[in-house]
């Protein structure tokens, strides 16, 4: 199996490179900016630890090639290419004289945004949980959320999927609590040594709450609790507690 998969993987990588190559080669229109400070420092790499190797003097122009995190790869009039930080780039101007501004995310965006997603680690009904979520906001307080998770326990493994609404209380605060309500599905693969029960798929409903904490730019921490009711075909419904915490970002 692995012997056959390896050339397949290589082939798919080559195919990917071939597909992406035209995009790299295509002629692009770059943003032109003018240096207004005494000089603009260019680093060898996209990070504060990489040394400054060139400075662009005042009134010279630069072309912005692309961005990686909060660093911009720029090309000077003389063809020198290097990395400038977003903080320094904000001091340059456009050809019409207006200040260059690039929004990498701020508290205002944290309060009011359209899309967010994140990954979590936690516990689901006593089993270890790895999960991710995505959410679409109607306004700063109400959002539609979907979450997918995999849990690994001593007695069973399985997957969970949820969809529901989240209501953010005090979205303008750095620490903002929220409440959730929704429905879902849980797929369980029980483990047993003698009699192996069949895998089962069961509908669930949940209510929960949590807190989110704005970190920087587009990123925040999110911790939450969900109380799940699992509607089984047996005599009694089951309950499962879900605790999780993780990183999330918004757009």
């Amino acid at each position, binding site marked *: 199996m692995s012997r056959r998969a390896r050339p397949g993987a290589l082939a798919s990588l080559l195919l990917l490179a071939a597909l992406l190559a035209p995009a790299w080669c295509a002629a692009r229109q770059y943003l032109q900016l003018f240096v207004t400070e005494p000089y603009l420092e260019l680093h060898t790499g996209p990070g504060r630890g990489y040394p400054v190797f060139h400075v662009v003097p005042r009134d010279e122009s630069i072309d912005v090639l*692309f961005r990686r995190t909060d660093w911009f790869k720029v090309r000077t009039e003389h063809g020198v290419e290097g990395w400038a930080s977003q903080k320094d780039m904000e001091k340059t101007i456009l050809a019409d004289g207006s200040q260059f501004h690039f929004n990498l995310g701020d508290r205002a965006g944290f309060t009011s945004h359209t899309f967010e997603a994140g990954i979590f680690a936690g516990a689901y009904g006593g089993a270890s949980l790895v999960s991710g979520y995505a959410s679409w906001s109607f306004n700063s307080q109400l959002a539609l959320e979907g979450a997918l998770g995999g849990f690994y326990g001593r007695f069973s493994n399985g997957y969970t999927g949820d969809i529901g609404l989240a209501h953010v209380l005090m979205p303008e605060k750095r620490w903002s609590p929220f409440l959730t309500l929704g429905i879902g599905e849980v797929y369980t693969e029980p483990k047993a040594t003698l009699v192996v029960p069949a895998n089962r798929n069961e509908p669930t409903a949940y209510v929960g709450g949590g807190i989110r904490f704005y970190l920087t730019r587009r990123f925040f921490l999110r911790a939450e609790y969900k109380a799940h009711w699992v509607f089984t075909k047996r005599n009694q419904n089951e309950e499962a507690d879900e605790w999780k915490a993780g990183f999330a970002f918004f757009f």
Partner: protein
Amino acid sequence: MESWIRVLLLSAVLAALTGCASVRNWFHHGSAQNGAAADQSVDQNAPPPRVIEPEVARRQVKVPRIRSSNFELGADYGVLSIEDFGAHPSYGFTLAYHITEDFFFQGEWGRARGGQTSFETLSGIQLLTEAERRFTYYDVSLGYNFLPGEAFIGRGIAMTSAMYFLGGVGGTEFGGDTKFTVNFGAGYRIVPADWLALHITVQDHVFQSSLLGTTKLTNNLEARIGTTVFF
């Protein structure tokens, strides 16, 4: 003769008239302006003078979208030491998203094939089927870049580089079961071109296993080299 003189005189009058018309302003220029100024000062209710519209349009800058290049996708190949089941070749894929210059998220998927335990080799009894020997892991990790620097080849080539720590959670399928797995490790990334990176990574996949009778934490160390493309 008479008509000839008449034509001559008429031509002279015509020339004089057009000539006077063209030089009329030479003599009356100042007075005409004074008159206009006088008119303006007298007529207070006249509309204000029209502002001359500049014929040069204001420059409109269309800001092109700045392409971002925060994702890193790649494949790797290495050796995975599965505790009690020997070290065997492994291969996998990674997808990373760079959040800041310091931190990145990374999703990893990898696969290897476990060998035989010493018990199996000695006794000839097979504990696992061939399908159960397939070791597959998938996890999400948070990475932290440190020790940024440059690597040099000869006099002309400099490549940026960095070390990074990795730590995360995920699952591992092995021995007919899927286990919650914690991973941690470190790597070295060298970037020969803006779109290309080479990696050397050492990562430990830790999970609880009870395949050999007792429940214990197993450490499954993996060393791999990989190549990724930024997009």
